[in-house]
């Protein structure tokens, strides 16, 4: 790029001051608290909204200029990718399943983030954060759109990409990321900022967009790495906004500290649970691996998050309690999550498989304390059974955590051979959670979490069959009916990668691309 840079009339600081202040007005015929009804109920006290400052000092004119440049670069790559059959350049068709999970589980959240930041911008009475929320809201819809556009190239050729929006609102594992954002969006604007702006953007998106996207590059997926890095260039701004927001709340009033701390504890844990999906994508779904989930965790969570909490200590912020458990969990969660998806591979809109010997050796080397001891024998057994024609699929439904909505698949702290679950009681009913972290969140706001739409409960209540289904009819197949309601193409979108249409097509098309017959 060769941009023409003109000498500026105003310096960056002056320009920021002029273009983000004095843009609002005091209301006359309605009181301000009725115009901004959500600004106070969470208990956060703000005395001077003008103390808010965006460290990037980005103003809308500059925003449009740089975003337009990012879009031009991105769409040039997407065109080149489509024109040159870029989909045949990936390492291995198994890789596509990570992209399917990304499209169904993550891209729709970008759209919810767009709505959430638009709402936060509307609900904050200060102009500085309102401008920042506006930019982030536009960023997020850009991310949703560019991801859908980039991935639509794969939808022309492969299974499982056809109906992500419909699936998000129904499918059991997609309720995990969906409920995370629903939980944040149904809170107030300040909690939203901690949940998404701080916890998700600052502490967690690096783990998704940096090593995973680098992994996409390593696996030849030019489309995904380009939209990923294009999105992450906005995330750098979002992380800064999240951090600024925390500092702003803590500096405005000492009474804000316990509220902010509670939200940090809650949303760090909520975010970590959602990231189990990313752990499994990195360790199992990338045929060529950049780094293990554990290594990524150590760089981006332990070192970077550690630096952040050391810095926030001057405000009295403490490291969330759940982090002690995380240093144990990082050795296990990707294996436990993949094992679960393998067993439920009949009910997922992507293919699953067991790693080959070389991949198992890589896992052993990366997880010397756990992989051989707890997982390798089970995985080898499943693989051997599949080779004999006995591919194992679980046909019963698992219990879900009332808070994170993940099946009870994680193990007890200190004992990786025992499934962990916790029980709470609320108004005479029992509720189950997967961990101390989720139980703590439930117990703090049971009136919120008893309303969770839990896919397994809904299936058992008969709410997940196509209209007109008669479950009492002879030969009724409940799983087939649920998959039909999910809009899964049963037999093509789901089941093992071995023997799938994707596998056969990719091999045939790549053969055509390299030979003349």
């Amino acid at each position, binding site marked *: 790029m060769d941009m023409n840079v003109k000498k500026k009339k105003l310096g960056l600081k002056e320009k920021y001051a002029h273009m983000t202040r004095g843009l609002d007005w005091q209301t006359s015929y309605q009181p301000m608290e009725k115009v901004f009804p959500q600004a106070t109920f969470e208990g956060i006290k703000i005395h001077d909204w003008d103390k808010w400052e965006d460290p990037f000092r*980005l103003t809308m004119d500059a925003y449009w200029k740089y975003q337009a440049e990012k879009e031009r670069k991105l769409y040039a790559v997407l065109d080149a990718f489509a024109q040159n059959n870029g989909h045949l350049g990936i390492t291995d068709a198994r890789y596509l399943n990570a992209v399917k999970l990304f499209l169904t589980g993550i891209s729709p959240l970008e759209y919810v983030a767009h709505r959430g930041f638009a709402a936060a911008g509307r609900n904050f009475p200060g102009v500085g954060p309102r401008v920042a929320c506006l930019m982030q809201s536009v960023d997020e819809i850009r991310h949703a759109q560019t991801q859908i556009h980039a991935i639509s190239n794969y939808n022309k050729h492969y299974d499982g990409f056809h109906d992500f929006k419909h699936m998000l609102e129904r499918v059991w594992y997609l309720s995990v990321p969906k409920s995370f954002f629903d939980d944040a969006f149904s809170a107030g604007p300040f909690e939203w900022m901690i949940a998404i702006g701080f916890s998700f953007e600052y502490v967690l998106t690096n783990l998704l967009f940096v090593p995973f996207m680098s992994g996409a590059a390593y696996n030849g997926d030019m489309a995904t790495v380009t939209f990923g890095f294009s999105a992450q260039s906005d*995330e*750098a701004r979002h992380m800064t906004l999240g951090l600024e927001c925390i500092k702003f709340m803590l500096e405005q009033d000492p009474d804000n500290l316990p509220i902010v701390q509670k939200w940090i504890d809650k949303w760090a844990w909520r975010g970590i649970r959602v990231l189990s999906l990313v752990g499994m994508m990195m360790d199992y779904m990338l045929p060529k691996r950049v780094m293990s989930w554990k290594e990524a965790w150590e760089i981006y969570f332990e070192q970077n998050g550690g630096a952040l909490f050391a*810095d926030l200590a001057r405000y009295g912020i403490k490291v969330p309690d759940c982090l002690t458990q995380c240093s144990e969990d990082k050795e296990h969660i990707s294996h436990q999550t993949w094992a679960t998806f393998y067993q439920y591979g009949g009910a997922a809109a992507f293919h699953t498989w067991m790693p080959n010997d070389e991949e198992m050796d890589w896992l052993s080397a990366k997880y010397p304390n756990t992989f051989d001891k707890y997982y390798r024998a089970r995985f080898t057994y499943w693989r051997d059974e599949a080779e004999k024609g006995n591919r194992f699929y679980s046909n019963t439904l698992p219990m879900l955590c009332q808070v994170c909505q993940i099946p009870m698949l994680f193990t007890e702290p200190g004992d990786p051979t025992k499934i962990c679950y916790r029980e709470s009681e609320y108004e005479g009913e029992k509720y189950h959670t997967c961990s101390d972290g989720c139980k703590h969140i439930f117990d703090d706001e049971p009136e919120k979490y008893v309303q969770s739409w839990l896919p397994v409960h809904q299936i058992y209540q008969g709410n997940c069959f196509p209209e007109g289904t008669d479950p009492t009819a002879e030969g009724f197949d409940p799983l087939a009916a649920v998959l039909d309601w999910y809009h899964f193409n049963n037999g093509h979108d789901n089941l093992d990668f071995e023997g799938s249409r994707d596998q056969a097509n990719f091999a045939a098309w790549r053969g055509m691309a390299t030979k003349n017959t």
Partner: protein
Amino acid sequence: MSNVFIAFQLNEDTRPIIEAVLADNPHAVANESPAMVKIDAEGQLVIKRESIEELIGRDFDLQELQINLITISGHLDEDDDEFKLSWLN
């Protein structure tokens, strides 16, 4: 003191930027991964407009960094001449 970092996409736009950053921050270390480079530095990292301009031979606006930026860590302070990341503790 904790590390701050900044990561860029690896391309022809960022090659001189990375060169300038490493020259201006002798304590910084560049770590390459596929398609990207992550520059780690203890305590703080300063990116200077003038150093980049010298290498690319044209005027440069530090906000252009955003186009190829992947991620940052640390408190940011940006003005017309410097883009500075730091931890206070």
